[in-house]
C-alpha cells in the first residue's frame, strides 16, 4: 500500500554545523542513518606542495593556515621539526613561553569547540560565554605577536621577541577569572538532563577501534587510551611540568566533553607552573641568517588541541625543503566519523561532528 524508500541527503559543504566545508552524504531511513560517506577536500590549498618552493622561514605562515583555530600549535610543531633537523638548542625562557602560548592556544581552541558544540545541540548561550573568554586570550595573542588568528608567532630557534611588559600579569589575571567562568559553562551543560540525553551513549568509539583508526587527541583519551604526546614524547620542556592526562571510560560524546573540560583545567595548571618558574635569559638561539638544515629527514609530533600533529620534513641541504608532509589529526579522526554515527539519528551526527572537533583547514591542508 505504501511505498517507502531511503532518502539520500547532502549535509554540507554549506551547512551550519558541519564546521567548515565538510560534506556528508547520508543515506537515511526516516531519521536513522543507514550509511554515511564524508567527502573532504573542499578546502585543499596544497600547502605541502607550496612548502617545497618556500624557504624554511617562509613556511611557518603557511602552517598558520592549517589548523586555523590553533595556529600556535602548528607553529610550535613546525619550528620544533626544523630545530630537531638542525640540532638547535632552544633557550629555556623561549621554551617556557612557547608552552604558555601553546596552552593558551589549547584553551582558546577548546573554548571554540565548546561553544560550537553546545550551539549544535541547541544551547546558544554557552557559545557567547565561551567567546567572551576566548576574546581575552586572543587579545593576549594580539599583544604578543600582533595577530589574532594566524599568528606566525615563533621563529626557528626560539621567538622573535620577548613578551611585552605586563603580559604575564594579564595571563595571571585570566587564570584567576577563568575557573569561575568555567563554572558558568558547566552549570549550563554538565548536569543538564537534555545535554546528558543528547551526549551520553552517543557516538561511542571503543578503545580498540580508536587505536585501529589512528584516532588521537581528546577522542582517543575519551575512549580510555592513555596517550598524550606531551607525556609520551615530551617536547619544548613539557617534561618539566606536572599535569594529569584526563581519561574517559565509555568513549561517547559526553566523555569527550568531560575530557576536554578537564584539559582546560590542566592547561591552566601548566600555564601557572610555567609562569611561576619562568627562567630569564635569551629567547632565541644563535641561528644562521639563511636556514639550511643538513640533508636528512625528521619527524616531529606535538599534541595540538585536536590530537597528534606530525611534521615530516625531508631536507637535501638546500634552503628549501625537498618534501614536507603534515600528519593532520582532523583528517585521521574524521575517518572514525561513519563508525561513530552508525545507526544513529540525524541529530546525533551534529553532536558527534562537534565532539570530534575537526577543523577542515587542518583536514584538507
Amino acid at each position, binding site marked *: 500500500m505504501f511505498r517507502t524508500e531511503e532518502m539520500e541527503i547532502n549535509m554540507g559543504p554549506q551547512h551550519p554545523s558541519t564546521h567548515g566545508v565538510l560534506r556528508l552524504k547520508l543515506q537515511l531511513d526516516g531519521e536513522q542513518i543507514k550509511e554515511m560517506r564524508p567527502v573532504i577536500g573542499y578546502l585543499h590549498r596544497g600547502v605541502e606542495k607550496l612548502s617545497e618552493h618556500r624557504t624554511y622561514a617562509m613556511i611557518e605562515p603557511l602552517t598558520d593556515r592549517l589548523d586555523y583555530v590553533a595556529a600556535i600549535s602548528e607553529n610550535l610543531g613546525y619550528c620544533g621539526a626544523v630545530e630537531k633537523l638542525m640540532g638547535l638548542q632552544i633557550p629555556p625562557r623561549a621554551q617556557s613561553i612557547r608552552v604558555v602560548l601553546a596552552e593558551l592556544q589549547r584553551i582558546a581552541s577548546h573554548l571554540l569547540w565548546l561553544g560550537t558544540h553546545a550551539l*549544535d545541540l541547541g544551547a546558544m*548561550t554557552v*557559545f*557567547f560565554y565561551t567567546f567572551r573568554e576566548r576574546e581575552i586570550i586572543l587579545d593576549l595573542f594580539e599583544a604578543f605577536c600582533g595577530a589574532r588568528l594566524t599568528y606566525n608567532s615563533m621563529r626557528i630557534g626560539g621567538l622573535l621577541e620577548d613578551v611585552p611588559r605586563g603580559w604575564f600579569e594579564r595571563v595571571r589575571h585570566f587564570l584567576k577569572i577563568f575557573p569561575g567562568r568555567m563554572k558558568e559553562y558547566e552549570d549550563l551543560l554538565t548536569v543538564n538532563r537534555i*545535554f546528558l540525553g543528547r551526549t551520553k551513549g552517543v557516538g561511542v568509539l571503543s578503545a580498540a577501534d580508536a587505536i585501529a583508526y589512528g584516532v588521537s587527541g581528546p577522542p582517543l583519551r575519551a575512549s580510555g587510551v592513555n596517550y598524550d604526546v606531551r607525556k609520551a614524547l615530551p617536547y619544548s620542556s613539557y617534561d618539566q611540568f606536572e599535569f594529569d592526562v584526563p581519561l574517559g571510560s565509555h568513549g561517547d560524546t559526553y566523555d569527550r566533553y568531560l575530557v576536554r573540560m578537564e584539559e582546560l583545567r590542566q592547561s591552566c595548571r601548566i600555564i601557572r607552573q610555567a609562569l611561576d618558574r619562568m627562567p630569564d635569559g635569551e629567547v632565541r638561539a644563535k641561528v644562521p641568517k639563511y636556514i639550511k638544515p643538513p640533508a636528512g629527514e625528521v619527524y616531529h609530533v606535538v599534541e595540538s588541541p585536536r590530537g597528534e600533529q606530525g611534521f615530516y620534513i625531508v631536507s637535501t641541504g638546500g634552503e628549501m625543503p625537498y618534501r614536507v608532509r603534515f600528519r593532520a589529526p582532523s583528517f585521521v579522526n574524521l575517518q572514525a566519523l561513519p563508525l561513530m554515527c552508525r545507526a544513529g539519528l540525524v*541529530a546525533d551526527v551534529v553532536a558527534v561532528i562537534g565532539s570530534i572537533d575537526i577543523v577542515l583547514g587542518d583536514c584538507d591542508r
Partner: protein
Amino acid sequence: MDQKALIEQVAIPILQVLIAVAVVPLLILYLQLVERKVLGFMQVRLAPRRVGWHGLLQPIADAVKLMTKEDTIPAKADRFLFTLAPIVTVAPALAALAVIPIAGTPFEVLGYQVRPWISDLNIGIVYLLAISSLGIYGIILGGWSSNSKYSMLGALRSSAQMISYEVPLGFALIGVMMLAGSASTVSIVEAQRSSGWWYVLPQIVGFFCYFISAVAETNRVPFDLPEAESELVAGFHTEYSGMKFALFFLAEYTNMIVVSSIVTIAFFGGWLRPFPNVEALSWVENGWVFATPLVLGAFLGWLAGQRLGSLNPMIVGGALGALLGFGIAVADPGGIASMQVPVLSGAFWFTLKVSFFLFAYIWFRGTYPRYRYDQLMQLGWKWLIPLSVGNVIVTGLVMLLVGRP
C-alpha cells in the same frame, strides 16, 4: 433586533476582530525585540541598538525588510500549496485569539456595552484545542510542497511532535474544565474567583503537563526540532522567504501569546488579582496607580544613569516612583486610587501574567539545549500522557469524594 443590539453584537465584535488582527502583529514585532533584548542580556551582548533609540525601531525595519524582500518560490515546488501553507498556519493562530478574555467586566463606550473579549463560547477551551491543532496542516503542507529534503524532514518531525503533544495538552485542560464545570474561558476564570483559589494549586500536575506540552506544541526551545538550524538548516520553512516566511514567524509568536494566555486563564486566574482577600493589598487592584510612577521613575532614572554610566539612578528613580505611587494609593487624593476601573486593572494583571510566561519562553531559549527526536517522543508518550491522564483520574476521584472545591 434593534439597532443597539445590532451594534453591540455585530459591529463591535467585528471592530474587535480588526483591532486584534492589526494589533497582535505589532505586538509580536515588539515581543520579538523583547526576546532579542532579553536573550542579549542573558548572553552578555548588546542586542539591537542601531535602528532607533536602543533599537526601538528595529522591529519596524525588520517588517519593512521582510515585506520588500524577494518572495522566491522554488522551481519544483507546488506553487499553490506553497502559497497556501503560511496562510493555513497563521489563520488558526489568529482565530484562537477570539475566545481570550483580557478582563472580566464589560464596560460602556458611548452608551454601548463593550466586552473585553471577542466571543465567550461555551466550548471555548475545546475550540482553542481544535483550532490550534489546525496549524499543523500549514506546516506539513509547507514542508512537503517545498520539494526539499530538509523541509520534508522538518515537517515530518513537526507533525509527529504536534500530534503527540496535543494529547497531554487536552488532558491537562480536562482537569481544569472538571473543576470549573465549564469549558468557557470566562466561566473558568469566574469559577476561580468563586472557589477562592487559582487552579494552579489543585492542578499543579496539570499545569506542568500543559506548559511543557504547550512549549512543544509551539515548537520552541527546547522542543524546536522542526526548525533545528544546526541539523535541518531551518526545517519546514527552509525554502520560504519574504512575507511568506514572515507569516510562519507571525504564527509561531501568536501561538506563544495564545498559549501563555491559556495558561493564565486556566491555571492562574486570568485577570484576577492575587490575594483578593488581603485588604492591605487592595490598592494594588489599581495596578497602574502604583506601576506608572514606578516605571516612569525608573525610566527617568535610567535616562539620567546613561549619562553617568551607572544603573544606580534607575534604582533610585524606581524607588522614588514606587514611593510616590504608594503615597497616592494611601493618601488617595480625589479618590483617584480607589477609583475602580476594573477593565484596566483586569487587563493589567492579565498582561502581567501573560508577560511572565512569555518571559519563561525566552528564558528556556537562553538556557536549554535541544531534545533529540526520539527523546522528545519518549517524554511525550511515556511521561506527559500518563501523568496528565492520571491527573484527570485523581481529580475526578477527589471531586467524587470531597465534592467540587
